[in-house]
């Protein structure tokens, strides 16, 4: 093959590659299809089916299934729903605030420790992460043993040794909610810590140096540099842990079972009970749709507060 021929062949190859790239750019559906199928089968189809079931009388008991709005009507007039939503709000708000505060506190502590080259910071990070990898059910069982009000309950035994009156951790409806939040915060703090730790690492250290030159004290540096710089991380973390907390039921079911009474029965647990105890598949689907709507509204709300990128960024 002559040089001219080789150049022509190379030229044809380049043209073919460019043409293929153009074709892909102009018709992205073919290469997006596998992902779309995967998402559709494993994510979209169940959601569509839940919407469909919400408009039926489907039950695990059997019987003929037909389309009706009765399940939605039953939810709207359900006198228990406001209590369940309030319980969910208290549990979610308490957990999200607690996880953010403790996560931020530990992340700042680890960062400062690392800057000062203190011994044991890696161990501290690992210890916090241990709680995160524990399954929800196990988390509930661990705290159930700690909060046990039996004479041999762990925390109350310590309180008795200190001549402090034992606490009705799980049998008092108000304290039971607090106990549930504590156990969830203990488990979820690690995730917030990781997010905040990464965000802290990304802050330009020259900002702190400049602030120090200007005479800013520790609190001022935290208030006017750290927090504003971490705003996107805090908002993203808020979205993620709010949705995760809304869906939490495993830790509660093993800690309190939703009781005493309905004191700790959050929306996700109520949905679980509706399907697996009352065997009401349609009712559970309506509740699932409600959870999806709440999660979406919260996500949109948080996202609207995110700082916008400038066009030239």
């Amino acid at each position, binding site marked *: 093959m002559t040089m001219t021929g080789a150049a022509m062949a190379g030229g044809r190859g380049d043209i073919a590659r460019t043409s293929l790239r153009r074709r892909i750019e102009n018709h992205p559906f073919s290469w997006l299809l596998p992902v779309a199928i995967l998402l559709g089968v494993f994510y979209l189809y169940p959601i569509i089916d839940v919407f469909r079931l919400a408009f039926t*009388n489907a*039950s*695990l*008991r*059997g019987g003929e299934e037909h389309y009706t709005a*009765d*399940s939605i009507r*039953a939810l709207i007039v*359900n*006198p*228990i729903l406001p209590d369940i939503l309030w319980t969910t709000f208290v549990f979610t708000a308490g957990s999200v605030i607690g996880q953010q505060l403790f996560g931020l506190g530990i992340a700042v502590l680890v960062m400062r420790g690392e800057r000062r080259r203190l011994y044991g910071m890696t161990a501290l990070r690992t210890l916090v992460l241990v709680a995160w990898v524990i399954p929800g059910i196990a988390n509930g069982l661990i705290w159930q043993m700690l909060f046990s*009000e*039996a*004479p*041999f309950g762990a925390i109350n035994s310590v309180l008795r040794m200190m001549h402090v009156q034992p606490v*009705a951790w*799980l*049998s*008092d*409806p108000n304290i039971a909610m607090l106990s549930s939040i504590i156990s969830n915060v203990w488990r979820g703090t690690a995730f917030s810590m990781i997010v905040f730790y990464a965000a802290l690492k990304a802050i330009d250290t020259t900002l702190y140096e400049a602030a120090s030159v200007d005479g800013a004290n520790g609190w001022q540096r935290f208030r006017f540099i750290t927090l504003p710089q971490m705003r996107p991380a805090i908002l993203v973390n808020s979205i993620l842990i709010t949705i995760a907390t809304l869906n939490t039921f495993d830790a509660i079911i093993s800690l*309190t*079972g*939703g*009781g*005493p*009474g*309905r*004191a700790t029965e959050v929306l996700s647990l109520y949905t679980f*009970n509706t*399907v*697996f*105890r*009352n*065997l*009401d598949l349609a*009712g559970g689907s309506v509740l699932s749709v409600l959870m999806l709507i709440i999660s979406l509204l919260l996500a949109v709300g948080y996202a609207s507060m995110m700082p916008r990128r400038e066009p030239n960024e």
Partner: protein
Amino acid sequence: MRRQFRVALLATVATLVAGAASAQDLITKDRVGPADAPKTLSFRLTGDGPGNTLPDVAEGYQKLFVDFIQKHPGWQIKLERMSDNIGQEQARMLEQTKSGTGPDCAAVDSFVLALFMNAGVLKPLNEYFTQAEIDDLFPFVREGITGKDGKIYAWWWDTDLRVLYRNKDIVADAPQTWDELKAAAIASKDKGMEGLLVNGGRWEGTTFDWLANFWAQGGKLVDDSGKPIFADGENREKFLKAVNYFKDLVDSGAAPKRIATIVNYDEFNAAAAAGSTALFIGGNWQLAQLKSTLEPEEFAKWTFSPIPGPTKDQRSTGTGGWTIGAFSSDPEKVAMCAAIAKEVYSGAGNALQQQLPTSKAQYDKFDVFKSDANKAFAAALVDGQARPGVPIYPEISNQIQVMMGDVLTGAKTPEAALDAANAAVQAAYARL
């Protein structure tokens, strides 16, 4: 001669080793029978089987299953172990069997059997049991497994009941009435105990154990058509009387407030072992657990008696237990499932685990049921009452659990809690 003896000895050892190896090959964690057997039966079971956490029981079931499969050549049984979350497991299995993806054969909790029967997923088992065997079942057992067409749809192989356990050193005489129990519990507190322990948290045991107090007065949860009537007329009075009895136990200090958090019979064993209680209402199976948990001299202090009623003559106790049912459409598999119920569980399984049999004949057949304790349990079955086999029962139970928590913690009055429970149950019934 010596050589012949050696050969004989070697042959015996080889045979024994081969036999043991062969038996081991016949049972694994999730299979009974040869892996290449042409016919397969999937069997979903609870801890009552070769995977039991107690080594003796596990070994006993392994032997029973190996003997069984040797009598049924050509078959292998795929074992599917349920988790301890029985309510969820049974609900999931109901859904699976309805969609045709369930096991061929399974353990079905007696209190949800009606749901499976009404869903039409169970196969009749009459042709695998004689009429004499069916007639010998206790009436509540026979009624529980019989469908509207008169056919039996499962084999109820074991039953249980609730009794009052007490430490004789602290409570010498068995309390006969509610008042006597309250007085005994308060007296036990003077001796450093925490009073009477009962289930009171969000789980089925709370409803089931408390219902004995409602049933003892003749109360009915549902009418003959299955409609909830526990909040109507006389039933309402009886219901409130039984709720107020529990509330009074807590308010008076006879029972600790923490009973509103108890969701496991094991808590009673733990309290007995810790020496912090002298009275609790538990299941008959707990006697064996206490025996294995406590030191012999401590165990000797414990005994049991029927659950006290409002009067000495008004008694009741909840009876539960497990059934085995067939879901397969293949008649051969249905026959195999019935054979498992008959040859592994009914009788042999009862004796192995000391689980109370469901027919009179088996109490005479096995020596283990001739002990004083088991005779006493069998006698107490006279007051036995099973939960109503109606589709609305799970929701009634759920609402009673919520109600009990609200009442025991003082969040609601018994009347308000009953009204809320009834409203929720009636709404659920209307949607059935």
